[in-house]
C-alpha cells in the first residue's frame, strides 16, 4: 500500500464515521429524506461560496454551504406549515429547484469555476491526497483529511455532550419538552450538524452518495438492534467496513470509489435485510407462515371443541366445513396429531385431554386478552409472542 492509498482509506473511513452518527438519529427520527434534500441543495451554497472565496476547501465556503442546507430545512418546514402540500411534496419541490439554480450557476460561469457537475454528484476521492495542507515547509497531510477530521471531532464532542438530550428527544419528543429540552434547538442542531457533515463529505463522495453513507449504515444497524448505543456503534462499523472494502473493489475494477463504497453498503444491507434474526425478511416470512398455520390449528381445535356430533368431526368433513384446501387440512391434521392434541379413531377426530386444555387456554386468552393465560405457550407458538 502506498501512502496515498492509506490516506484515501483514512479519509473514506472518517467520512463514513462522520456520516453514520447523524444518520442514525435521522433514521430514528424518520427524517432520512431530509439528507436527500440537504445534499442537493447545498450546491448553490457551494457555488456562491466559491465565487466569494475562490477556494473549495475554505471554512467560509463550508459555512455558506451548510447555511444553504439549513435554509432548505427552513423552507421545507415553511411550505409544510402553509398546509398547501404534504411534507414529502414540500421536500420534493424545494431541493430540485435549489439544485437547478446551482447547476445553472456552474454552467453560466463554467470558465471561472473549477467545479465539475460530475464531481458534484460523485466526488473525487482519488484526487484527495494531492491537495495537501502545508504550513511553511511541513506537509501536514491532505486538506480533506483535516476538514473531515475536524467535523468528526466536533460531531463526536456534540454527541458525547448531548447524548442524553438527543436520546430523549428522539424517542419521546413530548417528554423532552416537558423536561425543558427545547425540541427546536435539538432539531436545528441536528440539521446543522447534518448539513456541515454533508458539505465536508461532499468533496470526497459527492452529493448523492452522502445520502447512502448517512442512511444505509444506520438502517442496517437498525435491523439488528434496538439499543441506541449499539446501533450507533454498528452503524459506524458498517460504514467504515464498507468504505474500506469499497475502496479495494474500486481498485480492482478501476471504477469510481464512491460508487463501489455505496455498492458494498448496498450488499451489506441486502444481506442483513434478508438474514437478520427476528427482523430480516426470511425470519419475518417464516414467522408469518408459522402464525398462519397456528391460526388454522386453533380454528380446527375450536371447531372440534364446539361439536359433539360425529359427522361434524369426520376427517373428510374438514375440507367443506372450514373451507380449506386438501393440502392445508392435511398438514393441520398432522400437526395436531403430532402435538397429541387429537386422536383419530375410525376417521372420527376427537380432542385429547391436552387438546381440550389448550383450546380452553386459547379461548381464555382471546376473551380476556390477558397474557398470564398463555405464558406457557409462548415458547412453542409464534402466535402468542406478539
Amino acid at each position: 500500500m502506498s501512502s496515498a492509498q492509506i490516506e484515501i482509506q483514512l479519509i473514506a473511513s472518517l467520512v463514513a464515521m462522520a456520516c453514520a452518527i447523524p444518520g442514525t438519529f435521522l433514521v430514528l427520527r424518520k427524517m432520512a429524506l431530509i439528507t436527500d434534500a440537504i445534499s442537493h441543495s447545498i450546491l448553490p451554497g457551494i457555488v456562491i461560496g466559491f465565487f466569494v472565496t475562490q477556494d473549495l476547501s475554505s471554512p467560509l465556503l463550508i459555512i455558506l454551504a451548510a447555511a444553504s442546507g439549513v435554509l432548505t430545512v427552513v423552507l421545507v418546514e415553511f411550505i409544510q406549515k402553509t398546509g398547501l402540500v404534504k411534507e414529502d411534496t414540500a421536500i420534493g419541490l424545494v431541493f430540485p429547484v435549489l439544485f437547478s439554480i446551482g447547476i445553472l450557476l456552474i454552467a453560466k460561469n463554467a470558465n471561472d469555476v473549477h467545479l465539475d457537475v460530475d464531481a458534484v454528484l460523485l466526488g473525487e476521492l482519488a484526487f484527495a491526497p494531492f491537495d495537501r495542507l502545508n504550513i511553511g515547509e511541513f506537509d501536514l497531510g491532505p486538506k480533506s483529511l483535516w476538514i473531515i477530521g475536524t467535523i468528526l471531532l466536533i460531531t463526536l464532542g456534540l454527541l458525547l455532550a448531548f447524548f442524553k438530550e438527543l436520546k430523549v428527544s428522539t424517542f419521546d419528543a413530548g417528554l423532552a419538552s416537558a423536561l425543558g429540552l427545547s425540541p427546536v434547538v435539538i432539531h436545528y442542531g441536528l440539521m446543522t450538524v447534518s448539513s456541515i457533515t454533508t458539505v465536508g463529505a461532499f468533496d470526497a463522495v459527492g452529493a448523492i452518495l452522502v445520502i447512502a453513507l448517512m442512511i444505509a449504515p444506520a438502517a442496517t444497524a437498525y435491523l439488528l438492534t434496538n439499543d441506541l448505543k449499539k446501533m450507533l456503534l454498528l452503524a459506524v462499523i458498517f460504514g467504515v467496513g464498507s468504505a474500506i472494502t469499497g475502496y479495494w473493489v474500486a481498485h480492482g475494477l478501476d471504477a469510481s470509489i464512491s460508487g463501489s463504497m455505496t455498492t458494498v453498503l448496498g450488499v451489506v444491507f441486502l444481506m442483513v435485510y434478508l438474514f437478520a434474526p427476528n427482523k430480516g425478511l426470511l425470519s419475518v416470512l417464516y414467522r408469518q407462515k408459522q402464525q398462519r398455520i397456528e391460526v388454522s390449528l386453533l380454528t380446527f381445535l375450536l371447531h372440534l371443541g364446539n361439536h359433539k356430533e360425529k359427522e361434524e368431526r369426520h376427517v373428510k368433513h374438514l375440507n367443506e366445513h372450514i373451507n380449506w384446501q386438501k393440502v392445508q387440512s392435511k398438514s393441520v391434521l398432522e400437526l395436531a396429531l403430532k402435538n397429541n392434541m387429537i386422536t383419530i379413531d375410525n376417521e372420527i377426530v376427537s380432542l385429547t385431554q391436552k387438546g381440550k386444555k389448550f383450546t380452553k387456554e386459547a379461548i381464555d386468552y382471546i376473551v380476556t386478552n390477558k397474557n398470564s393465560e398463555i405464558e406457557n405457550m409462548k415458547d412453542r407458538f409464534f402466535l402468542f409472542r406478539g
Partner: protein
Amino acid sequence: MDLQEYIELVFTDYTLRTITLGTAILGAICGMLGSFAVLRKQSLLGDAISHAALPGIAIAFLVLGTKNSAAFLLGALVSGLIGTFWIRGITRKTHLKSDTALGLILSLFFGFGMLLLTYIQKQPNANQAGLESYLFGQAATLLESDVWLMIIVTGISLVILLLFWKELKLLLFDPEYTKTLGFNTKFLDILITTFIVVAIVLGLQTVGVVLMSAMLLAPAAAARQWTNNLAIMVILAAIFGASSGVLGTAISASHNNLSTGPVIVLVAGAFVLISFVFSPGRGLLFREIRFRKNRNDLQLHKTLSFMYDIASTHEDISHPHAIKILNNFQGFTRKSLQKLEDKNYIKVHGNMWSMTASGFHTAANLYNQLVKAEEDE
C-alpha cells in the same frame, strides 16, 4: 431573438421542434401521472425511482454494447420497478419507515449505477460517450423517434387512465372502501405505480435522474391549488407540465450555457410559487385577505355591539352620543366609523354619533345570535 422569430424557428428547425414537442409531451404525461403520485402521498417515490433507474441503463449498455434508447428505457423500467417493489418490501416486512426505505433505494441503486458507469467509461469502447447525459439530461439528444415513443406511451397511459378512471379515483380517496367493493386494489396499485415509473423513465433522457422528481411533482402540486376536482387537477397539471416544457425550452434555447433540464424545473417551480400565492381558494394571498377581512368584520361588529349597549340605555335610540365615550374601547377607528356610516348603521355629526333604526336592528340581532350561541354551549 424576438418572440416571432423564435416561434418561426420552432416550426422550421428540426432540433428545436423535436425538443419543444418532446418536453411538452413529457411535461403533460408527468403532470397527469404526477397528480396521482402527489395525492397518494408518494411524492418522493419519483425521486427514488429516477435514481434507481440508473443501473438499469448501465446494465442495458453493458449487455448490448451500443446506445439504444428503447433498450435503455427497458433497462431503466426494470430496475425502477425492482426499486419500487423493494421499497414496498422494506416498509411492509421490516420496521424501517418509508423515508428510510426511499433514501436507501435511491442512494444504493444510484451508487451502484455510478459504479457501473465509471466502469463502462474505462472500457475500450468508443460508444460509451454520452451515457452521463442521463444524469442531468440532455434535451438536445432527443430524436424524432424518441418523441414518437413518448407520444405512444402517453396515448397508452391516457387510455388506461380513462378506462380505470373510476377505480383509480376511488383507490386514491378511499382504498378500504375500494377493497370492500371487490375491486382488485393490488392490481390497481401496481397499475398506477407502473405508469408512474414509465413516466419517470421517459423523462430521464430529457431532464435527467436528479431533476426528474420535480417534473413529476411540480405541475401536480401547482394544479392541486386551483381545484378540488380530480379530473380538472389532472388536466391542469398536464397543461402546467406542458407549458413548463415549452417555456423552459424556449428560455434555454435563447441563452447560451443554459441546460434545458434545470430551466424547465425552475419554470415549473415558478408555476408552483404563483399557484401557492395567487390561487383564489387556497392561495396564501387570498387566505391573508380573507383573514384580514374577517378580522375587520369582527372589529366592526364589536364596535357596533358596544354602541348598541350605549344606545339601548336611552329611550330614543337615535339619541346622539359623543365619539369620545367610545375611547376606552379599542375597536374603533375613524375608518371603522366611516364604514358603519356607509352601511347606514350610524350617523356621525361632528364629534357626536347616533344610531339609526337599521343599525339598532342589526346590532340587536347580532347580540341575540351571540346570546343564542352562549345558550347553546
